[in-house]
């Protein structure tokens, strides 16, 4: 029972000595902090936005059933399908079925943490479907067979030099460590995939119930390609992403962007409301013109209902996935998000993991936190992660998952009156 914590500490130790990671995180930390602050300074209404965003999310979580129903009705009336998946297995089965029924050979993907959560890629590949990640960071880690280390920057644990090494290996020819050249290669290699793909899979940053609209934020243009070029678009998202209106969704995007990437606005915001359509000929409605003919929305529960109903943890469902808490976390700064994650990283990841994958998977995450409160201070939604971390630690103790090394600290206090086991 003790061994897992010792083994985990060994992994942390290796990350602390990982020279590539050290350089990558040093560069990231300095750049993120200055860019994010500059963006916030240039947003005079930022505090209004974030306070309103919290109100919107609070209301939405209280009315989630109503919002799901509204979203479903709107998407179906647009000619799309809607599916509420109870758990990971259910979601994977549904998406796989859609792909198989269309005899899909190739799926292109926009970055989506929910598909990481349910291990969708692995399932599709098993069915013989080629899956290509099209977000540059995601593509890099797909080539390396790694998991994302940050919800916004999946390959932030790597340096330019390391990415060049990966590309050189994949292409079997020497690629210089030059970001411009690396991006050029991604552009060339991925372009053909967009056109050939049978299925485009995306996540959602926000969903507006009153119109069934999905809002997607990006800079690269890969989301536009993935959701536009293939004949079928599958949007898969956590059910907590729904807000009442498009205006609410846009407001939330104004809070996500500066905190995620230090921009005032992202290069692209896509608002997608059902499949592509025209009525140019005799006002006859025809689906699938230049965009997808088919549109499928899959909303995932997978523990979210339980989280939303739990007064101790409900607040975690207000998370808009901007990643600011990770980007300026003192622990993340040292070890990044490969070791400090199951699927979701860091402190907020510990809360999410408890509900999506179970307490045992959350244990190492919750125990690697200084409870310093930096995450709560930077969080635009003011989510009290440190308090929830302590609630998780309570659960760990009750479940017998607290390592003996930590139990002994508690025992020292009870026996000797101090945590060090010193005799007075």
């Amino acid at each position: 029972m003790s061994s897992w914590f010792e083994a985990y500490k060994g992994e942390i130790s290796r990350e602390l000595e990982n020279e590539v990671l050290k350089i990558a995180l040093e560069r990231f930390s300095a750049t993120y902090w200055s860019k994010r602050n500059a963006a916030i300074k240039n947003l005079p209404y930022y505090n209004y936005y974030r306070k309103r965003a919290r109100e919107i999310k609070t209301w939405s979580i209280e009315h989630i059933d109503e919002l799901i129903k509204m979203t479903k009705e709107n998407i179906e009336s647009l000619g799309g399908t809607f599916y509420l998946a109870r758990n990971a297995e259910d979601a994977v089965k549904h998406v796989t079925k859609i792909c198989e029924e269309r005899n899909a050979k190739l799926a292109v993907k926009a970055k989506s943490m929910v598909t990481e959560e349910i291990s969708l890629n692995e399932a599709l590949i098993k069915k013989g479907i080629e899956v290509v990640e099209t977000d540059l960071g995601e593509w890099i880690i797909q080539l390396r067979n790694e998991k994302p280390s940050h919800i916004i920057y999946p390959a932030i644990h790597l340096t330019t030099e390391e990415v060049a090494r990966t590309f050189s290996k994949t292409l079997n020819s020497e690629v210089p460590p030059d970001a411009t050249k690396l991006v050029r290669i991604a552009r060339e290699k991925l372009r053909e995939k967009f056109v050939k793909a049978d299925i485009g899979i995306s996540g959602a940053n926000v969903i507006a119930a009153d119109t069934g609209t999905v809002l997607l934020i990006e800079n690269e243009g890969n989301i536009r390609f993935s959701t536009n070029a293939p004949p079928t678009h599958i949007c898969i998202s956590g059910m907590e992403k729904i807000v009442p209106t498009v205006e609410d969704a846009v407001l939330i995007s104004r809070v996500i962007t500066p905190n995620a990437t230090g921009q005032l606005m992202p290069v692209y915001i896509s608002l997608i409301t059902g499949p592509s359509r025209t009525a140019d000929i005799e006002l006859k409605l025809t689906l699938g013109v230049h965009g997808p003919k088919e549109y499928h929305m899959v909303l995932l529960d997978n523990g979210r209902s339980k989280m939303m109903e739990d007064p101790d943890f409900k607040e975690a469902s207000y998370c808009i996935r901007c990643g600011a808490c990770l980007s300026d976390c003192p622990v993340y700064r040292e070890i990044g998000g490969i070791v400090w994650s199951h699927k979701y990283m860091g402190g907020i990841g510990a809360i999410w993991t408890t509900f999506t994958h179970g307490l045992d998977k959350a244990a190492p995450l919750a125990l690697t936190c200084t409870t310093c409160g930096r995450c709560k201070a930077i969080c635009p939604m003011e989510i009290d992660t440190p308090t929830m971390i302590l609630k998780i630690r309570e659960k760990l103790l009750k479940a017998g998952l607290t390592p003996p090394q930590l139990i002994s600290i508690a025992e020292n206090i009870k026996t000797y009156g101090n945590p060090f086991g010193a005799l007075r």
Partner: protein
Amino acid sequence: MRYGLLYWSGCTTSYLAPELSGNVVKLLGKLGVEFRALGSREKCCGYPLLLLGDGGSFSELAADVSEVIKSEEPEAVLTNCPGCYRCFVNYYPKLSGIKVMHTTHLIYDAVKNGKLKFRGGEKLRVTYHDPCDLGRHSGVYDLPRNILTSIPNVELVEMSRSRENSRCCGAGGVLRLSIPQLSTQIAVTKIKDDVSPLNVDAVITACPTCIKNLKDGSSISEMLYGTKGLAIYDIVELINMLTE
């Protein structure tokens, strides 16, 4: 004036930094404040139990500790430990009616009332590290800064991450005990990235645990990255050094 003050040093100070409690006692002497201490009757406040998720044991311990403190009938409990301070203020309902003070409160009052006589001397360039339990968790940001800027030969410069943005020293949440290598590395980065660009002579803080971790971080950073050797002082220590 009879202060009715009970000095609570806390475990970290008692066992790992006893010289700091000596400094608090010295300061109280300078201020002519009468006080009492619990001696061997002082037990852990139980804060680490909360950090370990053991709320049940905490409640039992807190009830006992509350009784011991109340039996002394103090008007106020003074501690130099932000962990104990946060714990008493937030998780000790039975202490209601007894004022809980951190040493920064005491020093600030003394400075405001002109009770401290600063010696002149060489100029000292310092920065202030916000302990998480005192800053973000208790909202005490201004008091230590007001104290430092009122000392004639002290120049206070801020880190780029300060106040609610301050980087934790790395010791919080029992990480110093549970994963010490990571805990120390956070302190090294704090010294290297946040402190060393300021070219200060000393880092002032107000927490015995932060002092331990920052001292470790500073010596490792000096060794590995050649950053300047730094003095790490608790604000009580600094005040004793600079006053008559």
